[in-house]
């Protein structure tokens, strides 16, 4: 360390310490001293000389450590245009476009250029929900980088072998695994969960209990009843909610009995000659106190709704409408009609909707939709082909945003042309009802047939703030459609 003397003198000052030249610089040091221009002059020259001497004498270090090279990539590289757009979307932070490009690459089994992998993996760390698709688009290079970088290694943990996921995977992956198992074999999933739920933390218990919602059956009742005593309030509430809606469970049977006490179908004389069935609701038929310990509120929290009606609504929301119809010795259609004709239909309708959504009853959903009940969740209860007829009902300022959430899927399915046109018309009138990201996502779902229509909107005269805003969005959507066209 030839610079130690210089360092010492530099820190202390030449008043306190004067360095000696290192042996190799003794001659030149003597010549500097001989100039006799003062200690400071001598020090500054010697420092310059020593540090230059040290710099010139630097030699490379031998490093034998070698990183394993990246294995060969079996997948095709993304096309030139796609790669260029990926780069652009990354640098421009265009999240919507980036995710579309990643989706398309993965769909075609193409990989992004390896130089983009670090930026993509950083993105995956930010957005864990889409991390797997991002890691996939990085291909072998991405996995190789994850194996070398501690920060990215967590992304590889998501790629553990199937048989080890339950033991070693991340919470997200374990939940996915349990969901898959539950869909294939509900009993096996139940057993797996029952065996290990005691060792899980509260967040995991809640996440895994949520999975029981899939193909919920009476076999789950015992575990759910155990979970009513869980330490976590959230887990308890979730277990109770599942037991409430589990048809045939003790709690649900209790609810049905109470509903049957309150509701009956009776016949009334009509115009003196015919008989007509009507729905009778007995609000005074109050239940035993035990029911109020199962998450049912005793006192109405809704303005203008009596306690009895409020109680009935809560219970109806937990009972499959088809089961109720059978219990009342009626048919689905008859019961729906009677309910909709009842004077309290408007009050009960949200609870019925909740029940229809929960139990996925298509007949009830269709009838409610025909009765102009505008709850987008009802569409989920219908077969895909039957939904189109009802979309128009949701083309209002209030419902466009939820309708788009319902329509815009992660597979970028093209919207029907007529619907797309109607949506654009609605948005052109009230452009602020969705946000910019909504427009970008919509653009990637638009069929090519509406391109000219969108261009027409862009060129439309009009100078008020809403028209200007929509024009800007239309331009942005056209850009997204151009990109889509470029890579499709």
């Amino acid at each position: 360390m030839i610079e130690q003397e210089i360092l010492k003198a530099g820190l202390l000052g030449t008043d306190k310490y004067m360095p000696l030249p290192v042996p190799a610089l003794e001659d030149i040091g003597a010549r500097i001293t001989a100039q006799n221009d003062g200690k400071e002059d001598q020090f500054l020259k010697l420092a310059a000389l020593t540090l230059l001497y040290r710099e010139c004498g630097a030699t490379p270090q031998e490093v034998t450590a070698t990183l394993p090279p990246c294995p060969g990539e079996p997948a095709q590289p993304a096309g030139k245009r796609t790669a260029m757009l990926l780069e652009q979307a990354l640098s421009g932070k265009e999240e919507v476009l980036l995710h579309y490009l990643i989706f398309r690459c993965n769909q075609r089994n193409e990989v992004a250029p390896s130089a983009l992998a670090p930026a993509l993996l950083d993105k995956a760390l930010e957005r864990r929900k889409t991390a797997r698709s991002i890691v996939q688009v990085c291909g072998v290079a991405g996995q190789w980088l994850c194996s070398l970088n501690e920060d990215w290694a967590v992304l590889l943990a998501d790629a553990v072998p199937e048989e080890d996921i339950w033991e070693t995977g991340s919470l997200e992956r374990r939940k996915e695994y349990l969901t898959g198992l539950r869909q294939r074999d509900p009993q096996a999933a139940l057993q797996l969960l029952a065996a290990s739920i005691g060792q899980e933390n509260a967040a995991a218990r809640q996440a895994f209990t949520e999975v029981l919602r899939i193909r919920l059956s009476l076999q789950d009742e015992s575990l759910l009843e155990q979970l009513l005593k869980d330490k976590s309030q959230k887990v308890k509430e979730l277990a109770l909610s599942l037991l409430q809606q589990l048809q045939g469970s003790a709690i649900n049977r209790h609810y049905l009995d109470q509903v049957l006490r309150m509701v009956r179908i009776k016949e009334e004389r009509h115009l003196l000659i015919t008989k007509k069935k009507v729905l009778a609701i007995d609000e005074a038929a109050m239940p035993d106190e035990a029911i109020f310990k199962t998450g049912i509120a005793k006192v109405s929290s809704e303005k203008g709704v009596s306690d009895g009606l409020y109680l009935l609504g809560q219970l109806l929301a937990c009972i499959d409408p088809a089961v109720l119809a059978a219990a009342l010795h009626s048919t689905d259609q008859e019961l729906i009609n009677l309910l909709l004709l009842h004077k309290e239909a408007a009050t009960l309708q949200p609870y019925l909707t909740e029940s229809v959504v929960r139990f996925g009853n298509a007949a009830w959903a269709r009838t409610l939709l025909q009765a102009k009940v505008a709850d987008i969740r009802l569409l989920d209860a219908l077969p895909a082909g039957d939904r189109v007829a009802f979309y128009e009902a949701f083309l209002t300022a209030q419902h466009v945003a939820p309708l788009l959430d319902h329509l815009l899927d992660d597979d970028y399915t093209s919207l029907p042309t007529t619907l797309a046109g109607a949506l654009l018309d609605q948005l052109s009138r009230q452009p602020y009802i969705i946000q910019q990201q909504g427009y970008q996502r919509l653009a990637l779902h638009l069929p090519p047939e509406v391109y000219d229509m969108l261009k027409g909107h862009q060129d439309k005269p009009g100078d008020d703030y809403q028209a200007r805003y929509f024009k800007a969005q239309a331009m942005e959507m056209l850009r997204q459609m151009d990109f889509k066209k470029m890579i499709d």
Partner: protein
Amino acid sequence: MQYSTEQILQMAPDTPAAKAGQQLASNAKWLLKAVNEKALWGDCQGSGKTPYRTMVDLDNIAFKCSCPSRKFPCKHGLGLMLLYVQQPDVFTVEASLPDTVAEWLSRRGAREAAKDEKVQKPVDEAAQEKRIQAREKKVLAGIEELRYWLKDVVRTGIMNVPQDIYGFNQSITARMVDAQAGGLANQLRQINRIDFFHEGWQLALLKRLSKIYLITEAFDHKEQLPPEMVQELQTLIGWTQSKEEVLQTMPVEDTWTVLSITLSEEEQLRTERVWLYGHNSKRYALLLQFYAGNQSPEHLWVKGMQLQAAIAYFPGAAPLRALIKSHQSLSVQPIDIEVAGEVTQIYEQVSGALSVNPFLTQFPFILNRGTLTRHEGHWWFKDAANQAIPLANTTGECWRMLAFSQGKPCSAFGIYEEERFALHTLWSDHKSCFVS
């Protein structure tokens, strides 16, 4: 035109302009899009009634737009070029240029000619001599004060400098500006780049202080030095050489590749460093440009582009800084430069260069068939003999380089500066990765 998106976006003056340019790279946003072998032009509908006319000179990349933006290039220029790269088929190929474009291109040509004429202008030698003498007197007085200041600093020691980092050299820097020794003022400003919060600042500071002292000492004995070294010292002190003089020296004609472009900003002054490599001359050249405020660049370079150019070097001990005398942009080609030598030779070249010019601050190098690796928490670039240079690049840059090279041998261009090596560009298999 074979530019990539990345290369075009690198021309953007800032990130918002780059992003806005990307937004405008849409067919729908342009009412007119046309291309000719000399230029690109288009009309972009802005918020007003009249669309903006945007033009791009394809021969020597330059932009012109009728929008009121003070950024250069503006978002319209970037958007038009990006659109052309992404969707060339939506552009109409025109055999002739419209009047506005032709006029702009001819004005650009006329300006180039005017520059050449300026070189021919006679100077009043007597007045010039008087000015030189007056300035020298001021500079010498400044140097004298600087030497006193340096001696004062080392007399009391540098231990307490971190307690007043900004005030430490403020007055003396201002004094050097007053003394018209801008080079020395700049050398003093470099002290503020030292990281006083990390171990090692002591040697870095001593090295800076002693080097500045050495400059003043060498200048004091300039009669004993070769003319190139005197020229080098004059530049370091602050005598600038007129571009006209430099341009009158014998240029080096060659095919040059733009290996790296870096932009740094200090006190509202942007410094652009463009490193070139001459394929036949095997020489490096550094184009150094300074821009104040919203000043527009004279040339727009694109990393990886090739140009046929005559380059004049500033005189000095080991000249690197240069000016473009005349040039013609070629296309963007994959970088393919082979330079003999391994890591040991790079160290030897650095030592050799320092022995010729001890004030050398940057030394460019190329290493072929090197491999990136990590060892003891540091990043290295090593040759086949396992001789390695430690990398000064950021961790993010190192990961990007590793991802590009995939752990396999590749070539790299880098800069040795302040005893550290930073890689700027990697290339392999006809692909390039511009790191900085």
